[in-house]
């Protein structure tokens, strides 16, 4: 599978990442190499195989629906890059 620099640009947009033109070239090469390598998985006949998404077969882990102490506002905001009062502050969204 060959990834073009344009495709790399599209994937980057999906992942909220930016690169320089030179980096897109290098990424396209690296990703193509890796995808060529993982092609070998196509050799496997998986028509009757179900996918593994969870390792433990114990099922859902439910707990009793009772209130527990949670983070205070001060704690929750302690690492905020920017805050306004009791909120996380972000750049303006609606003009």
């Amino acid at each position, binding site marked *: 599978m060959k*990834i073009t620099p344009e495709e*790399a640009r599209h*994937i*980057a947009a*999906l*992942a*909220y*990442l*930016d*690169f320089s033109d030179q980096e897109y070239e290098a*990424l396209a090469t*690296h*990703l193509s*190499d*890796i*995808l060529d*390598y*993982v092609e*070998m*998985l*196509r050799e*496997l006949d*998986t028509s009757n*195989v*179900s*996918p*593994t*998404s*969870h*390792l*433990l077969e*114990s099922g*859902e*882990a439910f*707990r009793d629906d009772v209130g527990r102490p949670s*983070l205070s506002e001060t*704690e*929750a905001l*302690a*690492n*905020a*890059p*920017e805050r306004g009062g009791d909120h*996380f502050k*972000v*750049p*303006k*969204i609606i003009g």
Partner: protein
Amino acid sequence: MDVHRLSVRELRAAFEERQLSAEEICQALLTRIERLEPHLHAFIRVTAEEALEQARDIDRRRAAGEQLGALAAVPIAVKDNICTRGVLTTCGSKILQNHRPIYDATVCRRLRQAGAVLIGKTNMDEFAMGSSTENSAFGPTRNPWSLECVPGGSSGGSAAAVAAEMVPAALGSDTGGSIRQPGALCGVPALKPTYGRVSRYGLVAFASSLDQIGPFGKTVEDLALVLDVIAGHDACDSTSSDVPAEHALDGLEGGVEGIRIGVPREYFSSELDPEVGRSVEEAVKLLESLGARARSVSMPNTRFSVPTYYLVATAEASSNLARYDGVRYGVRAQDHRDLRSMYHKTRSQGFGSEVKRRIMLGTYSLSSGYYDAYYLQAMKSRSLIRRDFEEAFREVDVLATPTTPCPAFRLGEKLKRPLEMYLLDIYTATINLAGVPAVSLPCGWSKQGLPLGVQLIGSHFQEPVLLRVARTYEKARRFREERHALPLENKA
């Protein structure tokens, strides 16, 4: 007394017999760290003041006649992707360089309750993505046995710190080999427990279905001691198992009489360095001479493990790392025009190149049109790899393989070729895909004087049997007794 020489159990004994106070132990190791750290860079942060305070507190509590825990007075280092309340936890990344967790990971809480002294945060590949610790935003760690070589990764700081006897034990995390591979390359015993055995609460997520926390130590006995403290169900991690955690320490000295060891043919492939292969074969022979029965087994899907691993791990990573957007924590880029450009700039400036490469690969394999061909096929191939293990463990108790295809390599040697670096996980990533426990033990030295590692693999939740076999091997192999001085120590 050379305090840095002592194992966890020996330190405990010296503390209990009042030969050493917790403060003396802590101070001795801090002095050792101060001396070696400039050469090795095993730590991102040494928390000397906090550690001495914890140690004095342990001494005060002992003086007051309090009952103290299993690790009282034992200094332990923790990988920097494990949250420590109030102490910077960076994951080796610029994007988290100012991140001060507001809570302790469950493993840290349990270590503190057991009386352990948390002495610092160890260096790592950014977000645990790498096999050499060269991907740390804060500079690489060096292998104590050869400063030109990498310590392995991603938990390279923890492995190097234990190998250089800066600490008797350390915690790392293992997603595709990140505990066992640096363990092998630095010559220290290292354990990845069964998936679900140890709570991941407070471990910064890389690939949630693969990640597991585990210990490095000087002896298998110490691995069991630390595991018994950190293992067990945790309501804060819905994937932590409620299968009761059987104490690994109890049956440790039971020997290997009648134990069935499987040697999977597929792990002795052409990629394997002959020196590593020979030392693993010798390890199996030694176990046979002690009463174990070895046989060859086949695990036909082994060669699919690295491609499966890199698709599953990067897909999960691309989703897990979406949270770094400069809003709730971490470093926010400053020169943005609007919200969207703030996200883009924050992530592009904050992440290093390997992390971005993996986010890209994961995003691609999850994207519309490619999901079935890549991610779904990888999850199915994962089922086949698990089946290989289930079938093997019907016939044997433990599997023995190399941990890595080669000994430690030179800094920079594999950085330019990502795929070559990925192939280093060839013998370790299978284990995470299956979720079984595995330990790497030092089993010899290369001609260049670098440690070699054997990997022993157990069945789900069979850590007690696995560690019993490992302990029997370690006692017979006498690796610790044969330890020679580090090149650094000879110079001094």
